[in-house]
């Protein structure tokens, strides 16, 4: 059974911004699906269209077989949503946050209290349940938001950048809980992230999104495998942009003083690569051998490393806000 089915989805903003540009995908029941991409790639807009917060310009969306546009309120009963910004209400206690959301999801009265208790227990929030949420740490707030999903039991859960801004140990806890929701409560999960480790750790399948389009999709293994072989990173003094002979591998990403080379068998290629550069007037300073990561996959499809893309997006945002204030 298909939990999420998206067909030819587009969102355009006037005059000519195509935030989401002809995206189609399916997520099977029980999967954890990751939407990967830099800021501004269209991930959040895609989620917002699926859960009915933003109207698509064109395209069709079905959730568990129901049309998300024509049966919006029925569909919302099947959905859970954790927005990117921490959205728990700071002026209420943890318990009250869960209570209000249980009511807004029409959880039956007899199930309400046991589920809230269970959720608090599971997320390790029981002893802070009666404290105002504004006194919680970021990790606790995120766990509280996930607890809301334990209470409302959606069939499909949407998490927008669930671990953004969290320290590594809170991050791991959040991942553990997401996996539990998926395994024990059988929720289908769609997460967006620009954290490669998160995608690799959690997702059964991922899709890479850039500038509103899907540029690649598959299991993390498939995507990494698709790059072929090992990655050899060479730091050089002297010319880095020499054309490589094909039997050594192919140059994947070159900057001024370093080259990433994809090659079938890294261990045996290293001595030959050193020899090649030394013979052509470059001096090898260091070498590293690694397996391709999702970051490399991203680099291939989005033509830019994710951190670099991030910086561009931030620069763009700063520029925009500057223009707003100046204009």
């Amino acid at each position: 059974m298909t939990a999420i089915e998206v067909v030819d989805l587009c969102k355009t903003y006037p005059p000519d911004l195509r935030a989401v540009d002809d995206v189609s995908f399916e997520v099977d029941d029980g999967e954890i699906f990751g939407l990967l991409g830099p800021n501004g790639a269209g991930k959040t807009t895609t989620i917002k269209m699926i859960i009915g917060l933003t109207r698509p310009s064109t395209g069709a969306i079905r959730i568990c077989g129901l049309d998300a546009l024509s049966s919006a309120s029925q569909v919302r009963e099947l959905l859970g949503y954790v927005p990117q910004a921490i959205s728990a209400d700071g002026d209420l206690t943890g318990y009250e946050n869960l209570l209000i959301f249980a009511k807004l999801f029409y959880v039956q009265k007899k199930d309400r209290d046991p589920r809230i208790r269970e959720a608090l227990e599971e997320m390790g929030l029981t002893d802070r349940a009666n404290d105002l949420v504004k006194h919680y740490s970021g990790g606790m707030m995120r766990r509280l938001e996930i607890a809301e999903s334990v209470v409302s039991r959606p069939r499909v859960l949407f998490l927008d950048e669930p671990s953004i801004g969290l320290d590594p140990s809170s991050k791991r806890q959040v991942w553990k809980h997401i996996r539990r929701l998926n395994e024990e409560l059988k929720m289908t999960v769609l997460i967006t992230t620009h954290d490669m480790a998160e995608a690799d750790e959690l997702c059964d399948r991922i899709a890479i999104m850039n500038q509103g389009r899907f540029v690649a999709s598959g299991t993390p293994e498939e995507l990494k495998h698709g790059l072929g072989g090992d990655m050899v990173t060479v730091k050089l003094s002297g010319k880095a942009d020499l054309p490589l002979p094909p039997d050594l591998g192919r140059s994947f990403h070159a900057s001024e003083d370093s080259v990433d080379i994809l090659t079938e068998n890294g261990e045996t290629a290293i001595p030959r690569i050193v020899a090649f550069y030394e013979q052509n007037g470059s001096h090898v300073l260091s070498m590293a051998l690694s397996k391709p990561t999702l970051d490399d996959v991203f680099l291939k499809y989005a033509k830019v490393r994710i951190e670099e893309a991030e910086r561009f997006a931030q620069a763009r945002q700063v520029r925009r806000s500057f223009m707003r204030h100046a204009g």
Partner: protein
Amino acid sequence: MNPLTRFVYSSLTVAEMEARKIRHDSTELWTRVVQPALWLLIFGEVFTGIRGINTGSFTYIQFITPGVLAQSVLFVAIFYGITVVWERDAGLLSKLLSTPSPRSSIIVGKAMAAGVRGVFQAIMIFGLALIIGVNLRFDVLDVLGVFVVIVMTAMCFSSLSMVLASFLKTRDRMMGIGQAITMPLFFASNAIYPLSLMPSWLQTISVFNPLSYGVDAVRALILTGEYSGLPVDVAVLGGFTVLFLTIASISIRGIIE
């Protein structure tokens, strides 16, 4: 649950959410009493003394007590849109709107919460009026009637504010518009002077001002005991309230786009 039960249940839940927040921190409720208190204690006392405004058989301070009450409710309600913008910025609004609860119930619940704050204002202002010896008719049914009118007034202006919020979308603009419309609404009403003393163009405007009807109804209930205008007041105020609630329920989607 059928759709109507769901709507009522969700509205009450959203109102409960707001009420719980007030219970945790009621500072704002108390600071909101300062301004109407000044209107009564200073403006009211001074103008009663100089007898500059002809208010018929009632003293000026009697005349403006209902007006000051309605005005303070207007001030509480008109800034509800800012709360909605703030909740949008915090992500809370998206989450509320992604629940199966109907959107109109989120709006109505918030408007009801404004009503709760309005009733608190009424209690405080009545208390103050008693202390300074303003002679009012404190009949149980009349006071209950005032509460109903106050809840309607609060719902009317808070939903108007949410309509504005869904088009203006930022806190700065909402602060600006809040300042820009409250005083005109206040002055173009019968809150602090009788309609008959206004220039005719202002009288025409005040016919379209929901606040005038709220003030008129409160004044009838608590001061004059003259109920003949009451049905019209309640009908017009109710009409505006339903109109603004309906528009807000539809337009609120715009604020998260």
